[in-house]
């Protein structure tokens, strides 16, 4: 079973109008790479030049990646990744 990525309407335009996307990967970063292959430009929207998450908050099964292992956090089948605009966290 693949990892599911949930995207709010606010970011839908970045992902070809989709609000759910499934992918395979060992780490969150792998999933973002898959997203970038499908929707070019995704990676640079989500990750800055220093390799840090920017503009968005990313959650694995509800937990902010900042409180896990960041982009190196490992994922397993059935996990859910949610991506929300940074300002939504305020």
């Amino acid at each position, binding site marked *: 079973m693949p990892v599911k990525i949930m995207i*709010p309407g*606010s970011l839908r335009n970045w992902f070809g109008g989709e609000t759910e996307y499934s992918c395979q990967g060992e780490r969150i970063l792998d999933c973002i790479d898959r997203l970038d292959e499908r929707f070019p430009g995704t990676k640079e929207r989500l990750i800055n030049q220093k390799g840090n998450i920017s503009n968005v908050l990313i*959650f694995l099964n509800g937990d902010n990646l900042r409180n896990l292992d960041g982009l190196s956090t490992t994922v397993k089948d059935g996990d859910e990744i949610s991506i929300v605009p*940074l*300002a939504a966290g305020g």
Partner: protein
Amino acid sequence: MIQDNPESKFIIIFHPDIFIGKKYTVRSGLEMTNGEVLKYWGKWIVLGEKSWLDELAIKLDPFVEDEKIPVIKYDREPSVNLGIEECVMMIYCDRRDRDKIWQILSRFGVKLKAWVTEKETMEMWLPGGVLLERWIESKKFNEVTKNKVREDAQARLGYIFEHPDEIFVPWEQ
């Protein structure tokens, strides 16, 4: 009850006993301290069209009245100046209760699962924090006003970090 005051940025759902002194940052009958709020308090984030959040608010109100959910607030309109096209609803609770509350939310069709701690939010709104600095830029304040805004944020939010043993006092919204 749902308080929809047009002068407020937020529509707020709270227990009516708030008017007679009931607090919502309470655990085992004791009001939480600033330190406990920083450690445990947070919210589930829900994004959506205002009309959908209005419907969700009506469904969630009974759970607030039943004291299963402490308090909820949501945007009257999207914070476009901060780059969001949808309204945001925040369902506040103690981290130790969040899974029970997630069960309620998922029952009503919430799919996007995002838990943000109050500590993380406050850090983003302290001077130098990404949201405060973006908000200041979006308002195009002059330097004097920018510094005043930062001083006010430091005074209000910094106090919570600097006084962990004091009882937490929510601010008016």
